[in-house]
C-alpha cells in the first residue's frame, strides 16, 4: 500500500470550486483532483480529464457475455440434452435461434452491466469495505474539495497555501491518503 500527503482546499459552492481551480491553474499550479457530492458541469474539462474508456470495456464484456451465452445454450440445449419444446427443431442451433435470442440478449446485458460496474469499482478503488478516499466527510454533503499534489508542483508548501488562500476557500488542510493498494 502506498500513501501520499496532499494539500486540500475546501469550498462551499460548486461555482467557487471551478473558479478556484481556474485561478490556481492560471498561476501554473497543477491541480490533481477535485471532490464533489454531485457531478459539476464542465468540471472535467477544467481538470483536463481524459475521456473514459469504460464504454469500451462494457462492449467487451457484452461481447464476452454473448459468446458465452451462445456456447452454453449450444451445449445445454443442442448437444447435451436436446429438448422438444413446442415441436421446435431441437438438433440445430441455427434453426431454433429465435427461441434463444431473449436469453442471449439478457446474458449480454447482464455481463456488460456487471462487468462495467465491477471495472468501475476496481479502477476507482471503491469496492465495498475499502477505506474512503475522500479527504473530508463534507465532500459527500455540501462541500467541494480541490486536491493539490506536492510532488507534481515545484512550488513550496507555503506558496501553494497562499495561492489557495487567494481563492474563495473556506478551509485549507493537509491529509494523507492511499494512492495505490498494491
Amino acid at each position, binding site marked *: 500500500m502506498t500513501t501520499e500527503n496532499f494539500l486540500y482546499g475546501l469550498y462551499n459552492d460548486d461555482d467557487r470550486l471551478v473558479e478556484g481551480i481556474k485561478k490556481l491553474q492560471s498561476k501554473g499550479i497543477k491541480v490533481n483532483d477535485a471532490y464533489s457530492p454531485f457531478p459539476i*458541469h*464542465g468540471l*472535467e*474539462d477544467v481538470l483536463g480529464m481524459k*475521456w473514459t474508456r469504460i*464504454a469500451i470495456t462494457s*462492449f467487451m464484456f457484452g461481447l464476452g457475455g454473448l459468446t458465452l451465452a451462445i456456447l452454453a445454450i449450444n451445449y445445454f440445449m443442442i448437444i447435451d440434452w436436446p429438448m422438444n419444446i*413446442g*415441436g*421446435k427443431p431441437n438438433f440445430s442451433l441455427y434453426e431454433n435461434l*429465435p*427461441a434463444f*435470442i*431473449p436469453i442471449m440478449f439478457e446474458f449480454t446485458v447482464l455481463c456488460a452491466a456487471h462487468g462495467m460496474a465491477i471495472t468501475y469499482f476496481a479502477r476507482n478503488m471503491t469496492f465495498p469495505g475499502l477505506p474512503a478516499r475522500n479527504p473530508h466527510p463534507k465532500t459527500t454533503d455540501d462541500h467541494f474539495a480541490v486536491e493539490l499534489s506536492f510532488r507534481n508542483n515545484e512550488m513550496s508548501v507555503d506558496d501553494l497555501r497562499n495561492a489557495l488562500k487567494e481563492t474563495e476557500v473556506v478551509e485549507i488542510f493537509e491529509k494523507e491518503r492511499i494512492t495505490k493498494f498494491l
Partner: protein
Amino acid sequence: MEQFTFTDKHKKVSFGLIGVGLLAVLYGIFTGQGERTWVSAMINGWYFFSIGLAATFFIAVNMASQAGWFVVFKRLFEALNMFLPVGSIMLIIVFIGATFHWTHMYHWMDSELMDPHSEHFDYIIANKEPYLNLSFWWLRIILLLGVWNLFAFLFRKRSIVEDEEAQPKKWFKKNITLSALFLVFFGYTIHIGSWDWIMSIDTHWFSTLFGWYIFAGVWITGMTVAIIMTLWLKSKGHLKEINSSHIHDMGKWVFGISFLWTYLWFSQFMLIWYSNIPEEVTYFIARIEDYKFTFWTMVLINFIFPMLLLMSKTTKRNPGVLIFVGIVILFGHWLDSYFLFTPGVLKDQGTIGVVEIGMLLGYAGVFLFVVLSQLAKAPLMVKEHALLEESLHHHIN
C-alpha cells in the same frame, strides 16, 4: 434573423421528382398493373405520412417533458409536421379508391363475405363486421386524421404567435397542456390507425403488438429524416446554433428507437413463430416464403447498421456516419412499409421495380416541396421560448 429561402433550384428538383412519380403511375396504369400502383401509393403514402406524424408526436413529447435541448430543432420539426395534411391526403386517396372498389386492397370491404347466403361467406370476417364496416371505418379515419391535423396546425400556429407576442412563460405552460392532451389521444389512436389501415389488409390475422410496432417504425423514420435534414441545412450554412451536442442527442434517438423497433418487431415475430398457430403464422409465412431475402435484409439492416455504427460517442457526432446510417435505415424502413402492404394484397406477385421506386421518388418530391416551402415560411430559429437560452448552451460530454 436567419431565414431559409425556397429557391427555384429546390422547386425544380421537387417538380422533377414529382414528374418521375407521375410517369411511374402512368407506366403502372398503362401496363395493366393497377393493383400494384395502388399498393405502391399506399406504401409511399404511409411512409411519408409517418414522417409528418412522427414530427408532430416528437414536438409534443419534447414540449410535455419540457426538454431544453430540443428548442433549436423546433422549427425544423414544425416544417416536417406541416407535411401531415398533405400526407393525410395521400392516404385518403387510397382509402377512397378502396371504398369505391377501384382497388381490392382491403379484402373485408367485399360485401359478399358478410352475406351468409353467398358462397364467398367468410365466418371469421363476418364476425368482425361491427368494427370493420365502411361507415365506422370512415368515421375513425375522419376522427384520427382530423384531430392529428388539428394538433399539427395548433403546434405550428402557437409557435409563430409565441414569437410575435414575446410571452414565453404563458405559452410554455399552455403548450404543456396541449401536448399532453395530444400524447394521450395519440397513444390510443395510433393503434386504431394501424389496425384499420394496415392490419385489416390481412383480415384474418391479428396481433396485439401491432400498434406498438407501427408506432416505433413511424418514430424512427421521422427522426432519421429530421437528422438528415439538420445535417443538410447545416452544410448549407444554416442552423449554426445546433452544435455537436445537439447532433449527439439526435444520434442517440436514432440509435435508441432503432432498438425499440427491432425489439417490437422481434417480440411479435418470436411469439408467433414459437406458438405456430395457423391463424397467426400465415402472416409471416406469406412474407418469408415468397420474399425471404428482402424480408430478412430489411430486418437486419434496420438493426445492424444503427447498432454497430452508432454505438460510440464519436460516430454519433460525425455527420458522414450519421448520413450514411440514416440513408441505409431510411431505405430499410421503406422496405418495412413495403412489407406491411405488398404480401397482403399482391400475395407472391410483389416486386420492387419501376412503379415502386418511381412513386417513391414522386412522393419524395411532394414531401420536399411541402417541407422546404414550410421551412422558408418562418425563421429557422425560434425567437421566444422559455428554454431557448438553455438550448443554445446545450453541452454534453
